[in-house]
């Protein structure tokens, strides 16, 4: 988080992209977009454009990574070279490795890992365009891909960030706010179970600001959750129509 240079939110509480403090960016969710994956989803979250695919449960390769008593979830979060202003090398950066790990750990609580011992589920996330908040959008899409693959889940996982710009707690930071704001708090959440499965924070917040930000992020999650369910239903209905 850098020093803020200009005002990120004006006196009327309107942000650089025209949103109010507690307003989500526009979202578009699609399920079942790739024919070769067992499950897949596409998300446009603001200008973020992200594809997620799930494969499995299937035999693990290499085999020695499988576990005798549970399924293994593997995740890869990967950015396309053209997804960011300066071309990114396709080799995984340390940031991508960390995000792959926290995304995996945000999804695991939703899975019945013990139901499929010795198998693996692979989730691949490809960020085609990045606009701030990619990890959250990736989790929202990855959960849909896993559901689309037919892997039983306790709940969907949905993610959204809140943060602080110019002393205001706001929802769903975009690129500029992410860079110039004073804190970013990505949250992943399972609404039915009231369970936070990812929480990180960059920047500086007081205790009470943190509480406010987490609550705001969870509210954002609940809104996106409705869209997730809608996206699944839409695909299901389309599939059903096709089948009839």
């Amino acid at each position, binding site marked *: 988080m850098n020093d803020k240079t200009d005002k990120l939110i004006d006196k009327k509480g309107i942000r650089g992209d025209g949103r109010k403090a507690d307003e989500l960016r526009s979202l578009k969710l699609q399920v079942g977009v*790739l*024919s*070769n*994956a067992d499950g*897949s989803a596409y998300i446009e979250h603001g*200008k973020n*454009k992200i*594809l*997620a*695919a799930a*494969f499995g449960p*299937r035999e693990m390769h290499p085999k020695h990574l499988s576990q005798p008593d549970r399924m293994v979830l593997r995740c*890869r979060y*990967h950015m*396309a*070279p*053209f*997804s*960011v*202003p*300066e*071309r990114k090398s*396709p*080799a995984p950066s340390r940031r991508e490795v960390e995000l792959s790990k926290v995304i995996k750990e945000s999804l695991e609580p939703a899975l019945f890992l013990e139901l499929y011992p010795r198998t693996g589920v*692979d989730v*691949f996330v*490809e960020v*085609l*365009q*990045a*606009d701030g908040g990619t990890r959250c959008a990736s989790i929202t899409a990855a959960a849909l891909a896993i559901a689309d693959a037919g892997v039983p889940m306790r709940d969907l996982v949905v993610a959204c960030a809140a943060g602080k710009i110019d002393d205001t707690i706001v929802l769903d930071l975009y690129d500029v706010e992410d860079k110039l704001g004073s804190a970013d708090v990505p949250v992943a959440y399972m609404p039915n179970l009231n369970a936070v499965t990812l929480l990180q924070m960059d920047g500086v917040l007081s205790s009470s600001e943190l509480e406010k930000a987490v609550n705001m992020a969870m509210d954002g999650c609940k809104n996106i959750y409705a869209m997730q369910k809608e996206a699944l239903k839409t695909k299901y209905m389309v599939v059903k129509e096709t089948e009839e």
Partner: protein
Amino acid sequence: MSSLITKVRAKQIEQLLENGKRLDERGLLDTRELKIEQGVIEKAEGSARVYLGKTEVLVGVKVETGEPFSDTPKEGVMTVNAELVPVASPRFEPGPPDENSIELARVVDRGIRESRAIDTGKLCIEEGKKVFIVFVDVYVLNHDGNLIDASAIAAMAALMNTKMPNYEVKDGELKIKQGYKPLPMRNHPITVTLGKINNKLLVDPWLEEESVMDSRITFATGEDGNICAIQKGGSGYFTPQQILEASKIALDKAVELRKKLKW
């Protein structure tokens, strides 16, 4: 490969071909439906998403500045990279590029480079020191066969969509002016691949056909109808006659496609 498609399926494909038919009901010389969307990645300098049947390829172009190669000090640089992203197929694994993605990148590169599609002479900022570098990143999102043609078309569509800074060079200094201008292009190669199954040639093989085919051959042709790149692939062979036949089909298909695309 018996592990990927049953021998029954292979036989079925071969019998259909004997009667001039294909599993997906195309004629032997028909390409699948082609759909091109340009400018899909707003933040990249250029981009295009191509659907060839169910095969789906996204190409993003980034334009940056850097050093020229020492043997072409006055020319910009183009570099093509391809990733067989694991979302595209259960057989693709994450990791550094393997021989398939490297071959794909190099064949796409060759068609663009040898046809001199990009006017690299116009991408020089300061001779020997600073030029524009055009990064063409091929991202295969869904693999349903014939990645070469889908990628080559997507790469060209992305380059044709590429805007770059409206720069001016004065005394070797790069001055960025307002607005953008298109990447300077001077040719528009079109790439056509044929497969061979049981001595039958077929255009635009899809995944099921690829899994039983002997070999493939790719021709890139420029606007003047000349051939600018060829690549034979696969563990089979072609007779000299089949090569001539394939080249004629490929040139015809390229003309047909060029008309459709208005390239």
